[in-house]
C-alpha cells in the first residue's frame, strides 16, 4: 500500500472521499473535468485519473491518442509504465499548463541563474517539490509522453544542478559511483581545457 506515499498533488487532494481500500480501481475525478471531453489516464497501479481532453493536448503522444480515428468509447488511456504518483503529477502539470503556459527556458542558461529565474513561480515550486527519484521518473514520463514543457523543466533542473561545479562537486551532488580513474580524469581535464577557458582562446 505504498501508492499514496510522497504524492500530494491537487488531483488527489480533491478526491479525499476515495478511501476504497482494496478496490482494484479507484477513479479520481478532478473538479475541472467535465464529462464531455474527459479522458481517463490509467496508471500501472490501476488508478484512473480523469482529465479534460484539452488539458492533455500538450502531450503529443496523448493528443495523438485522443485525436486518433479509432476513438475508443471509454476514452481510457492506459499508461502501464507510470506509477500513480507520477501520473498525478503529470496531470497536475498539464492542468496548470493549460491555464498558464510555462515560459521557455533559454538555452544556454546564464551563469548563476536558476530555473526559478526563468519560469513562473508555480513551475519552480512544482519542480522543487520533486525528490530525485521522482524527478527521474518524471523525466522518463515526459519523454515518453512527448510532453515538451515538462521535459524542458525537468531537464533544466537536472542540468542546472551541474552548473558551475567541478567534476568532484558534480559527483557528490548526483551521488555518482564509478568515476573515472585518476589518470583518465587527468587526461580528460587536459583534453577539455580549451572549453574551460572561455575568455582567452576559445
Amino acid at each position, binding site marked *: 500500500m505504498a501508492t499514496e506515499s510522497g504524492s500530494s498533488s491537487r488531483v488527489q487532494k480533491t478526491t479525499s472521499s476515495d478511501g476504497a481500500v482494496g478496490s482494484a480501481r479507484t477513479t479520481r475525478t478532478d473538479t475541472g473535468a467535465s464529462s464531455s471531453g474527459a479522458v481517463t489516464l490509467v496508471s500501472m497501479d490501476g488508478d484512473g485519473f480523469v482529465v479534460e481532453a484539452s488539458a492533455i493536448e500538450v502531450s503529443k503522444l496523448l493528443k495523438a491518442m485522443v485525436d486518433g480515428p479509432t476513438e475508443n468509447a471509454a476514452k481510457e488511456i492506459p499508461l502501464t*509504465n507510470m506509477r500513480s504518483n507520477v501520473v498525478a503529477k503529470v496531470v497536475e502539470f498539464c492542468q496548470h499548463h493549460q491555464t498558464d503556459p510555462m515560459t521557455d527556458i533559454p538555452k*544556454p542558461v546564464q551563469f548563476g541563474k536558476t530555473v526559478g529565474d526563468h519560469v513562473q513561480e508555480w513551475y519552480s515550486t512544482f519542480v522543487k517539490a520533486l525528490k530525485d527519484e521522482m524527478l527521474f521518473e518524471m523525466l*522518463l514520463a515526459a519523454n515518453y509522453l512527448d510532453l515538451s514543457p515538462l521535459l524542458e523543466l525537468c531537464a533544466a533542473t537536472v542540468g542546472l544542478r*551541474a552548473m558551475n561545479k567541478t567534476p568532484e562537486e558534480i559527483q557528490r551532488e548526483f551521488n555518482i559511483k564509478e568515476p573515472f580513474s585518476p589518470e583518465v580524469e587527468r587526461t580528460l581535464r587536459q583534453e577539455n581545457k*580549451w572549453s574551460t577557458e*572561455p575568455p582567452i582562446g*576559445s
Partner: protein
Amino acid sequence: MTRVVGGCRRSVLNMRSGTRRATGQLAGLPRELLARSMELLNMVDLGQVCCVNKDWRNAAEEDAVWRFWWARRFREDPPPQRGRARAGHLKQLHRYRLEDPLVGDKVEVSWEGRFRLESLDVFVGRSWWEATVVQKMDGFKYKIHYPGWDSNWDEWVVRDRLRWPVDPSYLSTTFRVREVVEVWCTGTHVKGAWLQARVRQIKQDQVSLKNVLASSPRTVWVPRSKVRRVCTGASCVNSSSRNGSRRRGGGRSSKLDASRQEALARALRGLSAGARRLPRAGLAGLRGAVRRRASLSRMRRGGGGGGGGGIV
C-alpha cells in the same frame, strides 16, 4: 494494489532503454535525457561534466549538444558533414574551429598597456578590441582589422592575443569587491574596447574600478550597467595549476592567471612610453592635459570631441 518498488521502476526504465540498470538515480538517466539536461549548459560546464564519469562524458559529447553551440557561434557555416560520424565528432570539430579562426571571423584582440580614445584620458590595463580576421599565416598567425578603424591599424597577431567574443551566457551582472570585471570604454566616433579592471568599491548603481587610468586618480566611478563579469566557472578556482601547458602554436603563455596579470599591470604602470593609439604628438604633451577628475561617462561622450587627438 501492493507492488514491488524495484520492479515498477525497472519497467518505467524499460520503456526507454531496456538495457539500462535500474538505479532510479538521476545520474543513471538514459543518455539522450542526460544529454538533454546538458543542452542548456555552456562550454565551461560541458568541459567539467565530461570528467564526471563515462555515462556523463558520453552524454556531454553527443552531437546534439554541440550542434547547438556550433549554430550559435558559427551561424554562417554549417558543420561539415561526414558519412559516419564517431562519438564526439562535432565537439572535436568545434574545438579545432575555435582554436584556429578563419578569415572573416569576428574575434577580439587583447592589448596590454595604454590606449586612448577620443577624450584625453589615457586608459591602462588589458583591453579587448573587436576585430575581424582578414588574413592568415601558418603557425597560428592572423592579420586582423579593427572595424571602424583605419586599415593602417591592421596588424599581425599570434593566437594567444585572440579570444572569441564572450558568449552572453558567460556574463554575470553580479560581482564583488576585488573581482576582475570588464568595463566598456568607447568613443563617440570610434568603437571602444572592453577593459579589464578590479572592483574597488560598489555603491548602489556605481562601481569604483582600480587602476583604470594612467594618471592619478587612477580610480574611476562608472555606472554598474557598463560593467560586466566574465565567468569562467568553477574551473577558475585553481587556474594557477592550469597555467603550465599551452595549446599548440602559442608562443607565449596564457595570461589568464590573475597574479601574472597583476604583475604585468604593475610593470606596465611603471612605464611611461609604449602607448598605442596615441596621437603622433606623443604622450608627453598629453599627460599634462589629462583632466584630473575624469570619469568614464564623461569620456564616453568624447571630451575631446570629434577632433579628439587624431586617432584615425
